């Protein structure tokens, strides 16, 4: 092997701990890249295959009740390649031994299945047999959570009477990859049962024989989605249409897409930070090595090595480290990816979500590593090229030092020489010191942002369930019910307070802009479920007119005082003009509110209600829920306590893991930057420090000078890092805010303290390791210095 290459490997071995620190930082970045993108890739490919295999529909529409005869006209619409109609009804279900209310979504299906749209994948058991009205398929998520399977029974409250259904099979559906009930923030598989029932049976139970209330369409390639949706809406309008929805806005599909986008964003954003830090570390270390090897480089040039040969030599150092980091990172990333997919399996139900790392990602990871290595080496290589051999043989000119600003303003007298040395040392290489400060501050920033998310979610939960929704139970009725019947419920034992609500599907129009949504009508001064603005103050509902979310206002381009056209989408479908009384900056959704009275006036109806909020006596919860389950008018029951609990159980576990990784990675960056800086400082000042020892300074005093320089860097980095973290957090909040939810932006003192502590500990560990080297400075060698 060529002697020059031997030198390269021996040099690397001499600096192995530094090289390792850098490689690990790079590895962390590559690991994130590989993890995020391989999971993204696996998820996306699985999704595409699943949607295709099960013929996931392109367009969905709900309607009050339309006759089956309409199906041929739907099928005849231009661009429609397949159309299925179904009956879909939400009911309350229960299981023996379970008091909390659960929702069951009954979906009709023809058995035996003949390749319908939104087909299911049978996982256990068999299909229901025709002529057996009580046989159902249940979704796998619910079955696993509740430990039910073929042979078990589940009760469904249909038209006020409890009916026993028999589970004969367990299935998965592309419509419910992400199965979340309306009103829930997160999927709760234990509280939402999807039940597929034979068409006739379901139709008979809900007065839907000869009719349907749900349409699914498959479009031909190249067909115009908006045109077909408009045509479908026209067809369904006479039958109480709620408006068609394209696949991308279907709940499950939407959440899944969102998740994929976030994976991609994170996969680019997060690794970049690590790669930048790694490139910086390489740069600084290599520059130092070139400075230290100044005379060797001069000798090599004297002997006839070209700039190109020497450049390749030094770049090799950088590239070897970064490729090593990339290889470690790829392995680590693969392992992380498997873990992440495991986490996803809890939320996203696919027939087979398997993690695999496509070779292209491995290649890209290696390439990224190599590029980082090359970029990190650039300035050092330039230094090598510019080194004039003759000059390099001469001893270097004494480093230029100046009195620092602090000294010049007169504090010099109060500072012992050690402090002066520390200050002047840090000031003598401003670029390098600044970059080191920046590196450590990135570690602080990463922690702040990571922990901020934990706090933000906690806050979101708190606001949602303690400030906005203060009810214990939310009840929805099968259809608008008289207020008398609702207020009768108040007399049930255990009910402390009831507030009524009415939800109405409408289309709001302003000029050429429109939006379909459900208006929520509440009592004049609600106590249980309130409208809250971003300052957490309750917003009074105007006696007349609408209060709407700022988000909705933006969509419709309306301001306070504007008039909008309200098209009611049910009943007599009246059209009215309403004033926008106020815009509210709320946390979730694009909502519109009015008082019950004004809605009833608008609809010219006497006061029907679609739901109610209950505050109940905890002791009487169980019997009350039983009673409510069996009340004929009640279609759905949501128990807040249970929602909060399941949220905490699922989310918080994942949060802890994320926080752990966050801490590890940030700690690694802090350690890497501080260790590297300290080794370089030691290399530069080693001779000076040894001289001090010869003069009589103790080990402790000399360490203090070295560590003092590092302390200046770390302490300066803390406020910078907190500021960057704050800014990054705000940026992320802005970037992730959508119509569905907006994160509150808050960085708690606890987060700040935690971030600072982690970085300080990391830096301290690194400092202690370097201190051992200071203690072993070769004093004798110093005395042989030549000038």
């Amino acid at each position, binding site marked *: 092997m*060529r*002697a020059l290459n031997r030198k390269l490997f*021996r040099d690397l071995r001499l600096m192995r701990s530094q090289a390792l620190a850098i490689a690990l930082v790079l590895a962390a970045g590559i690991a994130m890249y590989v993890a995020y993108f391989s999971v993204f890739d696996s998820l996306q490919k699985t999704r595409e295959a699943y949607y295709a295999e099960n013929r996931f529909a392109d367009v969905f529409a709900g309607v009050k009740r339309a006759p089956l005869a309409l199906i041929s006209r739907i099928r005849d619409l231009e661009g429609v390649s397949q159309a299925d109609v179904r009956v879909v009804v939400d009911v309350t279900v229960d299981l023996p031994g379970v008091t909390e209310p659960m929702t069951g979504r009954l979906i009709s299906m023809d058995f035996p299945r003949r390749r319908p749209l939104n087909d299911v994948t049978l996982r256990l058991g068999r299909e229901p047999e025709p002529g057996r009205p009580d046989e159902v398929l249940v979704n796998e998520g619910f079955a696993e959570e509740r430990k039910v399977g073929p042979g078990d029974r589940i009760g469904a409250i249909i038209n006020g009477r409890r009916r026993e259904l028999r589970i004969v099979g367990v299935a998965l559906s592309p419509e419910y990859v992400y199965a979340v009930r309306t009103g829930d923030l997160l999927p709760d598989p234990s509280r939402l049962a999807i039940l597929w029932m034979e068409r006739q049976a379901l139709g008979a139970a809900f007065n839907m024989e000869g009719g349907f209330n749900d349409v699914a369409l498959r479009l031909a390639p190249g067909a115009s989605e908006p045109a077909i949706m408009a045509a479908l809406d026209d067809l369904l309008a006479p039958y109480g249409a709620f408006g068609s929805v394209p696949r991308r806005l279907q709940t499950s599909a939407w959440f899944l897409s969102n998740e994929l986008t976030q994976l991609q964003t994170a996969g680019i954003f997060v690794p970049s930070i690590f790669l930048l830090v790694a490139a910086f570390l390489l740069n600084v270390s290599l520059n130092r090595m070139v400075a230290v090897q100044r005379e060797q480089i001069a*000798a090599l*040039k*004297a002997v006839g*090595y070209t700039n190109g040969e020497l450049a390749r030599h030094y770049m090799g150092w950088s590239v070897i480290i970064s490729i090593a980091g990339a290889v470690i990172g790829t392995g680590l990333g693969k392992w992380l990816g498997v873990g992440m997919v495991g986490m996803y399996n809890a939320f996203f139900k696919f027939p087979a979500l398997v993690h695999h790392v496509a070779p292209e990602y491995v290649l890209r990871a290696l390439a990224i590593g190599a590029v980082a290595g090359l970029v990190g080496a650039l300035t050092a290589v330039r230094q090598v090229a510019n080194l004039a051999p003759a000059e390099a043989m001469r001893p270097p000119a004494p480093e230029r030092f100046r009195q620092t600003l602090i000294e010049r303003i007169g504090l010099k007298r109060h500072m012992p020489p050690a402090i002066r040395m520390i200050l002047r040392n840090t000031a003598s290489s401003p670029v390098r010191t600044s970059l080191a400060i920046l590196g450590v501050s990135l570690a602080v920033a990463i922690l702040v942002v990571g922990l901020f998310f934990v706090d933000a979610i906690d806050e979101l939960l708190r606001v949602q369930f303690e400030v906005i929704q203060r009810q214990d139970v939310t009840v929805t009725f099968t259809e608008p019910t008289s207020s008398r019947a609702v207020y009768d419920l108040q007399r049930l034992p255990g009910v402390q307070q009831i507030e009524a609500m009415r939800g109405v599907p409408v289309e709001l129009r302003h000029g050429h802009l429109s939006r379909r949504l459900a208006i929520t009508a509440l009592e004049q001064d609600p106590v249980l479920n309130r409208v809250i603005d971003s300052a957490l103050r309750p917003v009074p509902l105007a006696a007349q007119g609408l209060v709407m979310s700022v988000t909705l206002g933006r969509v419709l381009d309306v301001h306070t005082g504007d008039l909008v056209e309200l098209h009611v989408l049910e009943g007599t479908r009246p059209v009215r003009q309403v004033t926008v009384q106020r815009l509210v900056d709320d946390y979730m959704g694009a909502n519109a509110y009015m008082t019950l009275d004004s809605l009833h006036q608008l609809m010219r109806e006497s006061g029907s209600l679609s739901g109610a909020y209950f505050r109940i006596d905890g002791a009487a919860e169980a019997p009350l829920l039983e009673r409510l389950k069996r009340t004929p008018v009640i279609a759905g029951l949501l128990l807040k306590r249970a929602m909060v609990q399941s949220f905490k159980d699922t989310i918080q576990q994942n949060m802890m893991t994320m926080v752990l990784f966050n801490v590890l990675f940030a700690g690694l960056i802090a350690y890497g930057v501080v260790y590297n800086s300290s080794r370089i400082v030691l290399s530069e000042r080693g001779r000076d420090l040894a001289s001090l020892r010869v003069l009589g300074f103790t080990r402790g005093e000399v360490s203090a000078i070295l560590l003092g320089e590092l302390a200046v860097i770390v302490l300066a980095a803390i406020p910078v890092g907190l500021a960057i973290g704050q800014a990054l957090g705000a940026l992320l909040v802005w970037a992730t805010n959508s119509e569905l939810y907006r994160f509150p932006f808050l960085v708690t003192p606890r987060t700040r303290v935690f971030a600072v502590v982690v970085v300080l500990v990391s830096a301290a560990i690194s400092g202690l390791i370097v201190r051992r080297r200071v203690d072993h400075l070769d004093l004798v060698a110093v005395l042989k210095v030549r000038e």
Partner: protein
Amino acid sequence: MSNVSASVFSLRDVTKVYRMGEIDVHALRGINLDVAAGEFLVILGPSGSGKSTLLNIIGGLDTPTAGHVNYLDHNLTQASEAALTDYRRNHVGFVFQFYNLIPSLTARENVALVTDIVKNPMRPEEALDLVGLTPRLDHFPSQLSGGEQQRVAIARAIAKRPDVLLCDEPTGALDLATGVVVLEAIDRVNRELGTTTAVITHNAAVADMADRVFDMADGHVVNERRNATRKPPNQLRW
């Protein structure tokens, strides 16, 4: 006796000014010089007289600020970086006062650094044998004495069979006995291989082993003399 024949080097009015830190240094002020093939030259002078600078220019490590430098038919005056590198690679061997060995390579590997990049070199073992270091082939510089390190440097310089051997204060860091050993190695190379040799030193005693001696002061050549006979190194005393 050395073979004094045609001029291999000619320097005309060579001047060199360089910047060190914040000061301008006038190292050479109009040097005129010719060197014949196979000659052994010694350049004497105190610290700061410009002798190292002169050597660096002859060796293609540096270019003059003004004047001309020629090696055979190579014009070194305005040569490009690449041309100078090529010249050094193929024609010049350097020995420096502080050896400038690569600390992470053994003696043999340090010599191999050079033999790896030239055509028709000696084998590293051969070069090291010429300077009497066969027992130390696989030792690192830290395991060698000053004199041994310098001899490795000489072996490294001659392994490529250079036309010119330039030595900058080769014995500056060594005691008398070791210094003599080193000078004997250089002397042997000049006599046996016929390599044109120039040695810079501030030690006047070394001048006695040369064919010609140049005295330098303050950037000028102030005196030039020829030695009738060359003393062998073991008879030098300082």
